[in-house]
């Protein structure tokens, strides 16, 4: 039902405001089970390039599961089974010949809890380029600087690149993780509640950063925080019990939700 | 089953033998307790054979325990009063006697059998099978054939191979070592780089394994492994003589390399523990039979009998 609603709305939306950007991810009838738990049910979603797509919904609705499906990280759990398709740039990511490593190089991910490697700041950022065969010290240095600048943390760490990343504050660590992502020049960045472990000031910094990054990257962000979704995203998908209830331009969804359940959630009546 | 009955038959033989020698003594007395023996590894096969016979056929209640730390190491224990009998492949030393005296231990040294110092080589070695006495001893003496002790066979005789000789022998724990160095080499230094081992079994393996080996040890260890080892016949002036039970016997042709092996009895132990005395006597009752079996030449019967009498007199 939610999906049919969406399909009806789509053309309207396109006319509405956003110019129709090319699609990065096209999810078709995606179902996912953890053993017997049916965590994602018939998901259909198209995600556009160079925009911020927010995914909201109450705890346990399948947000993390969905976003982790997009880079097949969800497969680290051997119990997981999927049906349906997810097309990234026109290629089904579940294709036998599609190496996860290749997909993940194109699609970066930032996690809820900052997870830098227990290495120096420099080595954290250089890790990605290095595994892709870039050995030249000079080039690595340039990449590291560019990525750290890109993640708006360069000024804070430029004098301590060789110190251990664990010495940074939580917010700095999270931006470092974003920089680590940027270093391999991905196409898409997935973010799973990237600010939920951070204090308000750091949260603001990350939000600004996301706004900035969308010029060059497609960003999909899971968030618990409705205000955040409203502030930074272009489109928002509302998940409930493993289904997409509504998928809409952010300003529309927050001002004038189509579905009663979306409204109830947005107005804080549950979740 | 077959073999064990054979062994049983053997045992019966010995028993009747023992009975003959023992005539007149009371056989019925049931003894108990234990007899501790350590010392020479050379003598070990003979003494452990005797001990087994004794425990199986004579006195089931007595436990005779035989170790083989080597003559010198065993003698140390003996001096400490830890053992009742101490086997030796050489005569007891002055210092050792002194130590015994200090500890108030009275002892008596008995010959048990005769052993031939056997010079062994690899079974495939077909050149060094006959050597003169001097060649043998010179080979083992440091600096005789080569200054750096890297002796080649061809250093001994020109027509022998140009390959390096590898030396083996028991280590300094052993009376065999001491007899060899002190008596046969006249206290001159052994060649450098000689491989000295604690265990005779290891030694046998090493020699049987190395084409250029030459080593020395008791005849028993050779004869038990004559399929794996070659032996050097030594020319003492009257042509080459191979060691054998006959040639190493008293006045045999191998006599220059023959030595008696001993056991030292603690007189105090024999006085205090009847089982020690009984076993000591038993040794000489069966020594002539079991000696050959384990690779020793027996002593003359009169000599053995005189020992029995000697022990009998200990009160």
């Amino acid at each position, binding site marked *: 039902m939610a999906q049919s609603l969406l399909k009806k709305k789509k053309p309207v939306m396109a006319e509405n405001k956003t110019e129709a950007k090319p699609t990065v991810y096209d999810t078709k009838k995606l179902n996912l089970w953890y053993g017997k738990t049916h965590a994602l049910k018939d998901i259909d979603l198209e995600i556009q390039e160079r925009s911020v797509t927010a995914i909201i919904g109450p705890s346990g609705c399948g947000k993390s599961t969905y976003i982790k499906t997009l*880079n097949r990280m969800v497969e680290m759990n051997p119990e997981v089974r999927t049906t349906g398709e997810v097309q990234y740039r026109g290629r089904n990511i579940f294709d036998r010949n599609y190496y996860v490593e290749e997909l993940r*190089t194109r699609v970066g991910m930032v996690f809820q809890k900052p997870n830098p490697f227990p290495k120096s700041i420099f080595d954290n950022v250089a890790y990605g380029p290095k595994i892709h065969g870039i050995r030249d010290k000079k080039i690595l240095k340039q990449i590291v600087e560019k990525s750290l600048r890109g993640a708006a943390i360069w000024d804070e760490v430029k004098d301590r690149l060789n110190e251990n990343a664990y010495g940074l504050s939580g917010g700095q660590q999270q931006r470092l993780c974003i920089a680590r992502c940027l270093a391999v020049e991905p196409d898409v960045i997935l973010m799973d509640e990237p600010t939920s472990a951070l204090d308000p000031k750091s949260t603001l910094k990350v939000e600004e950063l996301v706004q900035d990054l969308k010029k060059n990257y497609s960003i999909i962000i899971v968030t618990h925080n409705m205000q955040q979704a409203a502030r930074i995203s272009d489109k928002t998908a509302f998940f409930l019990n493993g289904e997409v209830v509504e998928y809409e331009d952010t300003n529309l969804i927050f001002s004038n939700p189509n579905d009663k359940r979306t409204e109830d959630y947005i107005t804080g009546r549950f979740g | 089953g077959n073999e064990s009955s054979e062994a049983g038959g053997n045992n019966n033989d010995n028993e009747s033998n023992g009975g003959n020698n023992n005539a007149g003594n009371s056989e019925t007395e049931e003894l108990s307790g234990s007899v501790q023996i350590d010392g020479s590894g050379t003598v070990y096969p003979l003494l452990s054979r005797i001990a087994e016979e004794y425990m199986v056929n004579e006195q089931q209640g007595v436990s005779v325990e035989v170790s083989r730390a080597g003559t010198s190491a065993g003698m140390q224990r003996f001096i400490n009063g830890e053992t009742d009998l101490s086997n030796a492949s050489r005569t007891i030393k002055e210092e050792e006697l002194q130590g015994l005296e200090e500890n108030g231990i009275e002892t008596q040294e008995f010959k048990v059998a005769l052993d031939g110092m056997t010079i062994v080589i690899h079974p495939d070695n077909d050149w060094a099978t006959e050597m003169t006495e001097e060649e043998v001893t010179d080979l083992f003496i440091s600096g005789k054939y080569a200054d750096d002790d890297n002796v080649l066979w061809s250093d001994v005789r020109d027509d022998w191979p140009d390959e390096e000789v590898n030396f083996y022998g028991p280590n300094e*724990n052993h009376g065999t070592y001491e007899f060899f160095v002190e008596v046969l080499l006249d206290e001159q*230094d052994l060649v450098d780089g000689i491989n000295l*081992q*604690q265990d005779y079994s290891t030694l046998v393996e090493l020699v049987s394994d190395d084409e250029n080996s030459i080593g020395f040890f008791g005849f028993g260890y050779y004869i038990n492994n004559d399929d794996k080892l070659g032996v050097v016949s030594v020319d003492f002036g009257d042509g080459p003589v191979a060691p054998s039970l006959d040639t190493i016997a008293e006045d045999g042709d191998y006599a220059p390399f023959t030595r008696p092996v001993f056991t030292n009895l603690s007189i105090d132990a024999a006085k205090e523990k009847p089982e020690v005395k009984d076993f000591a006597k038993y040794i000489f009752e069966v020594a002539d039979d079991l000696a050959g079996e384990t690779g020793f030449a027996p002593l003359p019967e009169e000599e053995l009998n005189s020992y029995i009498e000697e022990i009998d007199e200990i009160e």
Partner: protein
Amino acid sequence: MSYSANVKDMIETNRKNSKLAKFEKMIPFLLFLAASISVLTTLGILVTLLFETVLFFQNVSFREFFLQSEMRPLNPTNPQFSILPLLGATLLSTGIAMFVAVPVGLTTAVYLSEYATDKVRRILKPLVEVLAGIPTIVYGFFAFTFVTPFLREFIPALDRTNILSPGIVMGIMIIPIVASLSEDAMSSVPNSIREGAMALGATKFEVAFRVVIPAAISGIIASFVLGISRAIGETMIVTIASGSNKNLTFDVTQSMQTMTAYIVEVTSGDAGAGTTAYYSLYAVAMTLFVFTLAMNMFARYMTKRFREVY
């Protein structure tokens, strides 16, 4: 109920009569006595070793013991006491053992912690650990009667007793120590860090060797050090399979004697007290004790370090 009036009283009288209170006070003391046995054991080891070691060094100089190269303890004319041949053999056999145990143990650990599914790990890990439960005498038999003859098919120069074969077998014995402890250290690296690397497109191999192993390195080193300590202290395998030739060489095909095997040789059949050779036993044992103790303390320090990180 007839008794009911007096349960309270019964308890009260029992309390007054009970000798429990006195007994209770004794208990911590009795238990403390039991606990002090382990301290006494260490003390006992130290005192016995130290006492005779001092006597040894009254006869033999440190110089001779640590700097000369010949060990001929019972030589009647010119006894020599240098630990170097024994030390050399010990280090050589330990080196060979670690040469086997480190690559095999570490890759086994990587497989168990990074590649294997939970189910496979639960079966495979205990199976690998079985290797650690086999008595060393059995390994000794195996080295002597199987591995040495087997190796000699390929290395004809190999002596019947040599340091190579027991070294290899010791390595096999140590595999589970390295594998199990390294696996523990690697498992304690949080999954979020692995996910971080995977999300960058790293293969499992790259995750294991460039993230997990560096992160768990102190625990892994601890496992190596414990393995080394085990190898240094291992006795029966070398006693049986490497003979008792005290020579200082790096030729692994030769028979040589480790510190532990020397102790066995001098004690086996129980050497009598009083000679320098007998005291040398304790000097060697002291060296062995100090070596292994230092290694164990170092390993424990390293283990603590990796526990503290996460």
